[in-house]
């Protein structure tokens, strides 16, 4: 008993490592973002700060503006008003004030984007290995052998049989395609990954595997994630905190389990009470 309680106590490093995450600098900041396609269609009055290592879930029903907000945050859709700033090292980049070159460079190096439909995020006619290697090649990697080694490593990471390295994703199942898309995004060592319903089109058993993989990778790589999902179970599993969207606005934000277990806003209460519990 005492061996367990004292000899192997795991509190030795406690005081030193406590503030690591708390005092880190913000990674991304949105100020008064607004992008509307019609009254309450799109997103408006969006302001928040994202910190390194945080997983932020955007939840809400279809049409609430989650995906519009994700596109605006990820540099794909300029806002009507407001701005998005991203911290690149010591440097704050105003996403839409900077050039497209910088924005794209961010998107393929420090950022990732996992699409709901893997066909939108993969190059279907080229091999799995080339899909994984593309970001590295875009960054100037010019050694075939090393590109291949990275591809093999990442296939292992995402639990795809390495013998499939030269197959095109057309021959893959939906779950494998999604895992390949994840590998293709993470190979460049991004700090921030955007995910749009990453398990949306998949069978439940396949979903579980992807969620498990994402959970693991997010922790191992200390990724920040902005995740769009309408599935509150997915949100609970992956997200540290949530922003609940309804009719283009954020109606409630907070710690994931607090939002789900003690929702304050009438809409959130309705949303949470509508889930079937199994």
């Amino acid at each position: 008993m005492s061996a367990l309680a004292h000899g192997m106590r795991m509190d030795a490093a406690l005081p030193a490592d406590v503030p690591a995450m708390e005092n880190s600098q913000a990674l991304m900041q949105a100020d008064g973002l607004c992008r509307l396609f019609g009254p309450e269609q799109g997103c408006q009055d969006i302001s928040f700060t994202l910190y390194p290592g945080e997983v932020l879930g955007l939840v809400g029903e279809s049409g609430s503006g989650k995906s519009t907000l994700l596109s605006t945050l990820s540099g794909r859709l300029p806002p009507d008003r407001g701005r998005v700033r991203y911290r690149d090292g010591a440097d704050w980049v105003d996403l839409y004030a900077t050039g497209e070159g910088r924005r794209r460079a961010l998107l393929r190096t420090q950022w990732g984007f996992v699409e709901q439909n893997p066909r939108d995020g993969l190059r279907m006619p080229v091999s799995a290995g080339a899909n994984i290697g593309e970001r590295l090649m875009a960054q100037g990697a010019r050694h075939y052998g090393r590109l291949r080694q990275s591809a093999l490593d990442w296939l292992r990471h995402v639990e795809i049989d390495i013998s499939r390295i030269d197959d095109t994703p057309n021959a893959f199942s939906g779950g494998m395609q999604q895992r390949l898309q994840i590998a293709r995004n993470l190979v460049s060592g991004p700090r921030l990954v955007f995910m749009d319903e990453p398990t949306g089109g998949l069978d439940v058993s396949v979903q579980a595997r992807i969620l498990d993989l994402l959970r693991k990778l997010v922790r191992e790589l200390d990724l920040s994630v902005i995740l769009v999902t309408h599935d509150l179970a997915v949100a609970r599993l992956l997200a540290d905190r949530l922003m609940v969207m309804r009719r283009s606005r954020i109606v409630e934000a907070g710690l994931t389990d607090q939002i789900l277990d003690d929702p304050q806003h009438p809409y959130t209460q309705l949303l949470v009470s509508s889930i079937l519990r199994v």
Partner: protein
Amino acid sequence: MNAARAGKAPRSGKMLPGYNFAYLDEESKRMIRRGLLKAVAIPGFQIPFGGREMPLPYGWGTGGIQVTASIITPEDVLKVIDQGADDTTNAVSIRQFFERVAGIASTTRTREATIIQTRHRIPETPLASGQIMVFQVPIPEPLRFIEPSETETATLHALGDYGIMHVKLYEDIVRHGHIATCYAYPVEVNGRYVMDPSPIPRFDNPKLHMSPALMLFGAGREKRLYALPPHTAVVSLDFEDHPFAIQRPEAACAICGSTESYLDELIVDDAGARRYVCSDTDYCQRRAEARGEARGEAS
């Protein structure tokens, strides 16, 4: 031969009546020349132009013909080759076209020509300062095989974002064990733009690098112009561990004995026996003549 080179090139002087010089109207030629000036100013960058209808179908060299028509002068001497040969249908008809609508002189000799319009080859004989190569281009966009969207490829060029070009070469190695692209092999021009050198064999790629001649490229169907000014650095893309290399069969030309030229492979009988001959007919003929003379003097 010496007589021809010593004096001014003999003009045929006979022009079909009813046509403007070199077929195209002067406004169109000026428009194309403006495009060519831009192309020369930004080596490897594709310039759109208002392509004109030409009296032959797309795929037969309409882009090259428009470029040639726009730059040719009555003093020019034109050589036209198709796959290296002066005597194939396409080469002969284009040469005759300009003889008749411009009354210019033509030649098959690389050294004598001031303008060489080509499909699929660069002559073996080294080009000289003052010469102009005009390439017929079917597909000007090197990134298209990987990225079909034209707006996207334009953006990739603008940003110098060329990772996907290597994706294609990577796929080559995956499928063939080596970079198997053997024609239209992509090049980086002047350290900036990636360019399709038109479907020349990759054997010819090194001839683009620092060439003293001006290289003009015209794509008729897609209405694009691009160019390599003289002495431009042209690097064939590759991987560190799969460097660019040219291929040539371990054979000598059956006619002139060259062991350095690009060879065509001919199947000469039903048993599948092969012979290799130079693809560049002019080069081959000069060498064969020289050997004949040497033999003649010796005897």
